[in-house]
């Protein structure tokens, strides 16, 4: 039947019944590419900020700290020593904190130095680490599932997070600020009204942006460099997160600048599964050593000295609740 119709159509065509149609050339709009998982205007669920007293106070370290190879039997450290390597959740996108060096393919930075110091103290070898890259929103699930022993990834200590994971003492004090293009008129949080502001999913920065009274449009992505991509492509007006992360972005693009007064304090801690309190204490002991023996300062000068203005600060003073 279909073929009969074809034959009929052919006959009609031959007899000149076909109509003439013209082709209209449409106007083709450009479609900007987006980083994977990017979403515009999707504010994080407005969690009522948990209140707690003194979130940055951690657990007091043991004195003396056990030496490598002499971890107390049955402790979390003993289990890690048994395995022979420390599994660390890190970032490979934050310049000079935790980033993959394209020249070597190695992940390095200030956070990585801190993680290696823990491996050195626990296993006697700074290279006995397995680095697992995590996005901001994968950090807590990875700890809860036991995929990693510890997360050292520009992670801010908050009361909300303290209910889900344990934190070490503060090892870096960051402040949330704003990154814009060199020619932007945005000069602070108040000027962000209606502007698109980028931050990663699951970060405290995204929540802080969404909560700003000026009501910016939050744009969320997986990794911090995705924010810089979108800023360069003109898809967002600003990036807002911790000064140290922004400094890493500014170092990759000289046509950007960091502006405005700090929006919030962002004390970084190393996160550890909630039940492994012995490991929190051990890590605090490591941090005390690292901060007193000059390792912290050397690492700061190597990675962050060139990014951040001013003299090398003193390491944060640890606070303990018991």
């Amino acid at each position, binding site marked *: 039947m*279909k*073929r*009969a119709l*074809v*034959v009929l159509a*052919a*006959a009609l065509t*031959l007899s000149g019944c076909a109509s003439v*149609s013209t*082709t*209209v*050339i*449409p106007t*083709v709009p*450009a*479609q900007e*590419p*987006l*980083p*994977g998982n990017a979403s515009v205007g999707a504010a994080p669920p407005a969690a009522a900020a948990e209140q707690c007293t003194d979130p940055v106070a951690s657990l007091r370290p043991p004195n003396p700290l056990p030496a490598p190879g002499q971890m107390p039997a049955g402790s979390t450290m003993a289990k890690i020593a048994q395995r022979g*390597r420390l*599994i660390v*959740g890190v970032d*490979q*996108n*934050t*310049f000079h904190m935790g*980033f*993959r*060096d*394209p*020249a*070597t*393919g*190695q*992940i390095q930075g200030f956070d990585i130095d801190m993680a290696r110091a823990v491996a050195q103290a626990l296993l006697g070898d700074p290279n006995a680490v*397995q*680095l*697992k*890259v*995590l*996005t901001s929103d*994968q950090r807590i699930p990875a700890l809860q599932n036991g995929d990693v022993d510890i997360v050292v990834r520009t992670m801010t200590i908050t009361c909300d997070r303290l209910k889900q994971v344990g934190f070490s003492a503060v090892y870096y004090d960051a402040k949330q600020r704003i990154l814009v293009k060199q020619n932007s008129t945005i000069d602070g949080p108040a000027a962000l009204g209606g502007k698109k502001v980028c931050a990663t999913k699951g970060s405290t920065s995204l929540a802080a942006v969404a909560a700003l009274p000026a009501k910016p449009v939050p744009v969320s992505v997986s*990794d911090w*460099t*995705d924010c*810089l*991509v979108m800023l360069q492509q003109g898809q967002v007006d600003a990036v807002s997160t911790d000064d140290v992360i922004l400094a890493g972005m500014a170092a*990759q*693009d000289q046509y950007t600048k960091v502006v405005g007064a700090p929006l919030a304090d962002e004390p970084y801690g190393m996160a550890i599964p909630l039940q492994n309190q012995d490991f929190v204490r051990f890590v605090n002991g490591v941090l005390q050593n690292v901060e007193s023996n000059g390792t912290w300062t050397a690492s700061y000068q190597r990675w962050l000295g060139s990014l951040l203005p001013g003299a090398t600060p003193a390491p944060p003073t640890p606070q303990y609740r018991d």
Partner: protein
Amino acid sequence: MTLVEADRRGRGLAGLAGTTPGVLGGFALVLILVALLAGALTGLGVQSRVQAVDDLAARTGPLSVAAEQIYRSLSDADATATGAFLSGGLEPTATRRRYEADIAQASGTLAVAVAARDPGDVTASGSTLATLSEQLPVYAGLVETARADNQQGLPLGAAYQREASTLMRTRLLPAAQDLYRTETGQVTDDQDGAGSFPILELLLGLAVLGLLVAAQITLYRRTNRVFNVGLLGATAAALVALLWVMVAGIAVMGDISASQRDGSAQVDTLAAARIATLAARSDETLTLVARGAGQAYQTDYTQVDKHLGDLLAKAGTQATDDKVRAKIDAARSDHAAWTAAHAKLRKADDSGDYGGAVTVAIGTGTDSAATAFDKLDGDLRDAIDQTRAAFNQKVADAGGALNGVVVVVAVLSVLTAAGAGAGIWRRLRDYR
């Protein structure tokens, strides 16, 4: 009935209708018209088959090849560009060349695919060809930005590469797959058009023959003459035309069904296997690039790899040619080697030996995943080339079977009409 009666019955068509000359004249007229009309329709029917076979040989067949080529080149380009981010340091020249070749092949073939379509197909909103044409330059731009940043030692490069890969996986590859599905659908349509049973031709031929027989029976009853040379000639011509068309049509049916069995059906399976191979390789690479955050890619790999195994097994059962079978056997053993390399790679990565995992993934050793992947891809390419050659051969055979049939039909239908007209004219003259 005598001549006098006929004369008396008088003038005009109404009066003429029941008379022998009237009946015969009517028959002659109908026969000539029907013979010519049936000839024209049969000719058109045959011509539409010729057209479908020509399309298979020159248009839809090659375009399905083009669509597969576009998909393969795009997918390989992305796997290559992403893989360049696995090893640190300078991008190997071979990797760069491979990426450039893929992009050149994809855009060149895309131009062919676009040129073969009517403008309306491309301008329609959401057209796959428009998506491919619009997004391929965007993709290439992102990859070059990624490369420039990477060469300055900035981790930003990896972010541009991820954005490029997202564009490839969410827009370009789905469009390319869509295009491939459409083009193979056209091949099936053309095969149906060329290879269906020639029922229309048969009915038309039988109608002409039936009328001719009826005319001869009427002539015998009315004039008592058994044989009429003109009508006999016309019958013979109609019979020959019908037989010719039927023999050619049935030969084409056989060739077209062989072009499916020995060609396109196998190409479909093999092309799907090749697409799965490329998808699995992308997943494998991306899992390593994500460095621990790539569980979704690994899950996808497991699914695609299982599907690939099934497709290779299916291709093995479909194979009708020993050479193709040998290539599929080689593909299956290369697939097994790859699966083993992949297991080794995952074990290394999961136990913290990232460098070892990367070496297995992109190394040039005989037991590396890269080597097994390249061999598997090559086996599938060869098998596809061979089954495509079989397809082309069978389509060419079909074209040969239809050679000159339209001319024969035209000549014989004119002969039928002329014979019928002349034969009855002779009898009509007796009534003058």
